């Protein structure tokens, strides 16, 4: 199984999404850069470079998920990215399961991307200082989801401190997920402004 690495942008957006709706279950899509050659796909590190927050209202019904997936797929293919994974956070603080909340979507992504990953955010590790990596990652191997060791998950060097700093500044209020977009079409689910903030924060954080 290959290692999985998360960019600061992807990590921060996942954490900010979970923090914006502490009383809801949330989910979203993970994007990776498109692999040009087939040879080095296996055994190579999977680098998740971006995350698209999806829903916080009623994750169990599918029509809006279908719309969101097609829009994201289109956006990804025009930017050289590919749908590489799925993340979720359960509403219950101790719940790390993923079977109920969205295995359907994750399976769909795995159909089109062989080494897809499924991330469950560990709610207990969400703090203002973000000392620990708050993710439980599974990867699709041999037709099922196998959970990965903590040692094979890495984050970009400043990801944790940037996440902590953004949480303290309450930047999560600016995050737009697909539900926000459906309520008000002028809000952009690509979160370009937020991406900018993350970049700026990377520059200032030591």
């Amino acid at each position: 199984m290959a290692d999985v690495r998360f960019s600061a942008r992807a990590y921060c957006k996942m954490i900010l999404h979970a923090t914006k709706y502490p009383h809801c279950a949330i989910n979203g899509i993970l994007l990776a850069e498109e692999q040009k050659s087939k040879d080095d796909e296996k055994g190579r590190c999977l680098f998740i470079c971006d995350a698209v927050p999806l829903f916080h209202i009623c994750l169990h019904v599918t029509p809006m998920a279908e719309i969101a997936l097609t829009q994201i797929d289109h956006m990804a293919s025009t930017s050289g990215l590919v749908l590489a994974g799925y993340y979720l956070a359960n509403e219950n603080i101790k719940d790390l399961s993923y079977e109920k909340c969205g295995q359907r979507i994750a399976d769909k992504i795995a159909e089109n991307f062989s080494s897809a990953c499924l991330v469950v955010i560990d709610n207990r590790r969400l703090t203002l200082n973000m000392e620990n990596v708050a993710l439980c990652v599974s990867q699709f191997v041999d037709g099922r989801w196998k959970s990965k060791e903590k040692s094979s998950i890495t984050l970009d060097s400043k990801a944790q401190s940037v996440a902590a700093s953004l949480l303290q500044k309450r930047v999560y209020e600016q995050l737009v997920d697909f539900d926000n977009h459906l309520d008000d079409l002028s809000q952009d689910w690509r979160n370009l402004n937020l991406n900018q903030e993350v970049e700026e924060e990377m520059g200032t954080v030591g």
Partner: protein
Amino acid sequence: MDLYSNKMNWSEVQDLFRLWREENVRKSTEVVDLWERILQKKIHKLGDERLLVLEQVCVASLDCNRLEVADACLKALSTEFPTSLRIRKLKALKLEALERYDEALDVLDSIIKQDDTNAAPRKRRVAILRARGKIPDAIKELAEYLKKFMSDLEAWQELCDLYLFEQDFARAAFCMEELILHNPHSHLIHQRYADIRYTQGGFENMELARAHYCLALKLSPNNIRALYGLFLSATNIAISTKCTSVKKKENNKLAKWALNEINNRYEEQCGKSNQTAALEGLINSLQILSTGWFTVPPKPV
């Protein structure tokens, strides 16, 4: 990063709190923040609303783990009404916040014993079961509750959520049907019912979904979810093998109309910068959808 400026005066905050109470909004951090910064000093000016505000701040501070604030509010409320059941319920809520669930359940049981007709503690019992992750038990208890308190719409909505969590779509749909009976003019209820029927799948459910998306749109033409849902369900009906040619034409027309409406909304509401990107994405993705992306076999690796 203050959404609510420091310059708000106390009477504006009081109005805002009233609005949030009426609409049952969960903005706990903002409530505690505004209380501490602005309203707390002016509590004597609140008149009749003083007790309502204290209760609101108490619940909000328990939500944010600000136990000192909650304690202060509880103290003020208890001195005013030492034997009140409503305040005893707040004390049970505090025990819940401390995760002392068994003690909270004891307090709630004592309230139910004293007043059989009191609905609130019974609902808190269900909430405790949900917080402990015991969803099937929560469903059982809530179903029992609804046998006695049949017109509690909040409870029907909660039961629907619990059934959806267990992926029991048929029973979730039944709960939404109860809500439609009580509230036939709510576009959100029709839309959610249509979502559930769509998720269940199958020709009859798809037709039901389409009908309710149409109803939702009649009630609220700006419901984007209903527009998308109408497009999806009409397309699915049109490409189904069970569809007669008359229905096919009808559904294709509906789908086209929905797509057009969505395009119009995007044109009206999207900012100039992301308008083309969104529209391009939308048209292409919806064209892919209408050829059945979800039924196309996966791309070879």
